[in-house]
């Protein structure tokens, strides 16, 4: 067991979001691919309007065609939130009492409330399971992560490589003297 005491020491910075018209099938795939408990629904102006968790997806089985339902139809219209500076043990107790498997940390900027980080049951399991702190290196506010500038440079370089690769694979025939 390692020395991590506060929510901010164990949370994951970065939250996946979906649009209100994402389907149940798409959200289920997203959760399975990323081992997530839930996603935040953002409207077209970037405002968080709700949450879709595994619980809402399983609730969709009560409809005739569950896969075709949209986020807007099944979401809970709030975002379960906790502050980052409370003890993890308190957060675990609060989440169990409220029946929340995931909570989000929202960041307010220029009148918009953005989902910035998340903490789920999976985080507590990983903390229980960890034999050393190194196994949790990707968690917490101190975890190494790329800055927006680095992410931009990475995308730009990948696009360049792709363009160069495409040119290299279709060489123009040259005439030999």
């Amino acid at each position, binding site marked *: *067991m390692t020395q991590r005491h506060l929510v901010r020491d164990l949370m994951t910075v970065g939250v996946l979001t979906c649009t209100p018209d994402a389907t*149940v*099938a798409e959200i*289920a*795939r997203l*959760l*399975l691919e990323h*081992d997530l408990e839930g996603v935040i629904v953002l409207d077209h102006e970037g405002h968080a309007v709700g949450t879709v968790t*595994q*619980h809402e*997806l*399983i*609730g*969709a*089985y*009560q409809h005739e065609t*569950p*896969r075709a339902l949209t986020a807007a139809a099944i979401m809970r219209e709030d975002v379960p939130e906790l502050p980052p500076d409370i003890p*993890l*043990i308190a957060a*675990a*107790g609060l*989440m*169990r009492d409220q*029946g929340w*498997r995931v909570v989000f940390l929202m960041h307010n900027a220029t009148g918009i409330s953005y989902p910035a980080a998340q903490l789920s*049951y*999976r985080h*507590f*399991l*990983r*903390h*229980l*399971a960890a034999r050393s702190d190194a196994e949790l290196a990707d968690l917490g506010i101190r975890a190494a992560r790329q800055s927006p500038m680095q992410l931009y440079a990475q995308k730009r370089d990948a696009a360049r490589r792709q363009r160069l690769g495409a040119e290299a694979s279709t060489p123009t025939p040259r005439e030999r003297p």
Partner: protein
Amino acid sequence: MSARTLVRELIGPAVTCAPGTPVAEIARLLLARDLEGVVVLNEDGHAVGVVGQDELVAAYGRPDRDRLTAEDVMNETIPHVRPDIPLAAAAQIMRDLGVRMLFLMPQRGGITYPAATLSYRELLRHLAARSDDELTDLGINVVRQPFPRPPAPPRPGP
């Protein structure tokens, strides 16, 4: 995909542990195998409880969590389900009971044992599947296969 409408068509194998298994080990098992929980079997092979993610998060809040074992944290009620009810009914049972996994618990020779499970994970995979091919590892026919047949011994050469 649409043909899979009964519980028995989507079940996966149930995983068990001993009463003395430490909670850290159960957490590792659940993470490694993407499970909602495990059934606790006693020495005679009787199912005596279940340890799910909820029990582990409850254990997380206890000061003595490093010393706790399955026996200390398990829920003695094992939520069970019949294999021949529709998935929608099983989903509703889980939501009503506030659990994320159900077990098929047949009785043989006086022992009730966990034969298979249906959890949120199988239901999510069902919702996510683009075709039935993505679910070929689930269902009663897969779970029933006893053990993989040992490889045939090499034939003596000529």
